């Protein structure tokens, strides 16, 4: 009885475990740059006590939270501070998403509309008058450049160029490519297919893929996020039934679908979660088990600085990617001090957040300047936009670096494919 009382007395998001130690406040990137944000302790467990009594205590300033989860990583008592804040926003916020928020959040819809017009849309989005319109009317900051839309979606490329040859492999994975690979940067998807094929895995797309919903949650559209999440889970269940693990190349999509669906959106993901992984983690585990081998080009040389994206850090999976990169003999590896780059998905695109976003990332940009790498490696696509825009240093996903350094012919031989 006594043991039961103790073990079952757990509050939602562990909020009663907060000792008021204030360690989380040290690591909040937002309160470090603005006094208008009440900080994770006040916005999270402290504020929650008041909100439980009366919803009037909800403070719209909580929208300044990046959902970076660095407070949770720092918390010595496993209080899910970031979750408490996100849940409060979903439950209490009366702020209605603007047209701008809907446009930024609906990555699928906007991507589908923009891709066919990419040759026109890309240059237009870069024009000063267009930026002025976006800045003035849409409140999208003029300093931002939209990531280019690809004129050919990854899915179209895949169906024509890759799909026909995938059945020749004896082992298979399904790929959740995400909006970024599909609409903006198909090259990452191509790199993924190249690496997986070289180690003997055929790649397949899910029957139906929707945006994971991270931007919808952040922009106050949880219902739509839930609808999309259910579509994703159902497609993944079908892939799992065929024996396919599901891989991604985005830390944030992975984090959202594994760790936010269940308790923030109420989507049951328990039968999918274990089969959903990041590509670098999947490859690392296979190499460890001795099931695959990689060979790299001897003349490959690159100075690579690794940036720990917030959600990668929260998942605790940074070492999978860094140890994969360190396997490449030609890489001069530098680990950057882990800190938020400030973009946080759509957050940094908003006019009202731009300055804060850049102030948050400044420490990281300074570090990168100092290290002076050939490229920065990170597992998150929005960090890529932010770091490239702010430092001019190219940013690559670890999978792209592996693909670039890979000696495909030798790798295929090592894996008994030729």
């Amino acid at each position, binding site marked *: 009885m006594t043991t039961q009382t103790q073990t079952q007395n757990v509050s939602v998001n562990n909020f009663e475990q907060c000792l008021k130690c204030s360690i989380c406040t040290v690591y909040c990137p937002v309160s470090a740059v603005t006094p208008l944000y009440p900080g994770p302790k006040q916005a999270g467990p402290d504020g929650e006590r008041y909100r439980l009594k009366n919803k009037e205590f909800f403070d719209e300033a909580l929208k300044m939270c990046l959902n970076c989860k660095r407070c949770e*990583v720092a918390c010595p*008592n496993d209080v899910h501070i970031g979750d408490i804040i996100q849940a409060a926003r979903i439950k209490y916020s009366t702020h209605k998403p603007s047209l701008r928020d809907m446009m930024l959040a609906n990555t699928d819809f906007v991507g589908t509309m923009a891709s066919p017009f990419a040759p026109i849309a890309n240059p237009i989005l870069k024009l000063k008058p267009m930026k002025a319109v976006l800045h003035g009317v849409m409140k999208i900051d003029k300093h931002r450049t939209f990531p280019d839309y690809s004129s050919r979606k990854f899915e179209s490329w895949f169906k024509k160029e890759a799909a026909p040859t995938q059945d020749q492999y004896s082992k298979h994975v399904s790929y959740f490519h995400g909006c970024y690979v599909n609409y903006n940067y198909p090259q990452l998807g191509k790199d993924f297919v190249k690496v997986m094929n070289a180690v003997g895995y055929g790649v397949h797309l899910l029957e139906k893929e929707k945006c994971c919903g991270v931007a919808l949650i952040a922009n106050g559209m949880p219902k739509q996020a839930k609808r999309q999440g259910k579509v994703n889970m159902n497609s993944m269940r079908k892939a799992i039934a065929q024996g396919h693990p599901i891989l991604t190349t985005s830390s944030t999509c992975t984090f959202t679908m594994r760790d936010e669906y269940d308790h923030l959106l109420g989507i049951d993901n328990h039968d999918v979660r274990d089969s959903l992984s990041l590509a670098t983690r999947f490859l690392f585990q296979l190499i460890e088990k001795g099931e695959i081998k990689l060979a790299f080009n001897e003349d490959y040389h690159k100075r690579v600085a690794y940036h720990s994206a917030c959600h990668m850090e929260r998942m605790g999976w940074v070492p999978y990617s860094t140890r994969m990169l360190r396997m490449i003999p030609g890489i001069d590896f530098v680990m950057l001090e882990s800190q938020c780059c400030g973009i946080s998905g759509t957050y940094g695109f908003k006019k009202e957040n731009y300055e804060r976003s850049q102030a948050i990332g400044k420490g990281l940009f300074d570090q990168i300047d100092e290290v002076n790498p050939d490229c920065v490696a990170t597992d998150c696509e929005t960090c890529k936009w932010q770091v490239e825009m702010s430092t001019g240093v190219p940013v690559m996903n670890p999978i792209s670096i592996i693909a670039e350094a890979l000696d495909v012919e030798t790798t295929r031989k090592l894996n008994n494919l030729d």
Partner: protein
Amino acid sequence: MKFDIIIIGGGLSGLTAGIALAEAGKDVALVSAGQSTLHFTGGTLDLLGCDEQGNYVQKPLEAIETLNSKHPYKKLENVSSLAGVAKKLLERAGIATTGNETSNHWRITPIGGLMPTWLSMEGMSTVEEPNQMPWRKVALVNIINYLDLPTKFLAAGLREKGVEVDVKTVTLPELKELRQSPTEMRSTNIAKVIENNDLIAKLADEVNGVASEGYDMVLLPAVLGVTNGDKSQQLLKLINAPATYVATLPPSVPGVRMQTLLRKRFNALGGTFFTGDQVVEGIFDGNTLKGVKTAKLEDTVLEADNFILATGSFVSRGLVADYNHVYEPALGVDVDDLGLDRKTWAKIDVTEAQPYMEMGVKTDSELHCLCNGAAVNNLYAAGSILNGHNSIKLLDGAGVDMLTALQVVNNIMK
């Protein structure tokens, strides 16, 4: 995932061991479930401040000889040499300290008391003799609306020792702005505001304005320099009178700085840091630990030749008490509960020495953990998780953390 050594716990003890092993060329991984209690420490490290009778100690090495045989120091081969190694390790991480193991000096507590200590970070306010205050007149200068420096206690404590104290306050427009969110007027946020040289110079001007003449010492809250000590040193140099810092209530800037610099050093040496993760299971083969599983890595087992358990005491969840037992949650190794009945774990009077503070994991003479009474031949314990000492009573917390970690490193490298 395979490493030479895996350390469980990312506080002072774990990082000390991690740095020493990485310096010796080992492939080291460190698993840390959240940030450590270094965030509550005030920029000083204690070796032994009190003996078992409760008397203050001036010569720690001599007093260590008198400790009872259960104390973790009794498992060290050479306390004096390990203490020297610890000081140098801190220095290489960018943490310059004053003091040494042969004689304690005295730190000023945030509520105006004096406590014996071993090493103090550069710039912290200390005195050599407790009965002979070196200052006749002191200016205690706080930042307006900064609540984590209890100036009244501090002033009263110093006046009791015969020092004349004037309490002054200063501010800057930038600090007034920070005050917009009253809960966030914290030491580390102040440190992040006073980042550039201009503001440091302006703050120094303000301090010089209120403490212009006639002071032997200007005491300031330690709220500068989260990532390194340069900014805090710079401010002291710009103040006309001699100036030093007093520790504040948590989060403590010098404590966070120490944590940050140690972690940076570990990273720079190529160490792998698993942040915000927790060891949930050990995989044993007889008396050998083969690997550990963590909450976040799920099916990936972390394997190593040797393991160090440095997860701290109750406050860091290295030890857990339920209604009936005290246990070690990560690996389930043997815990010494002193054979006490549940009702006698704690004393009602909080100022008394609490029996539970001496609980901890059992180890053999080489600091191997025990599992069901038998030593695990590649699993060591270090730091506050060890049984046999009360760090609040003896003021020996940092010393036990660092020195037992270094001894374990020596035992592994043998």
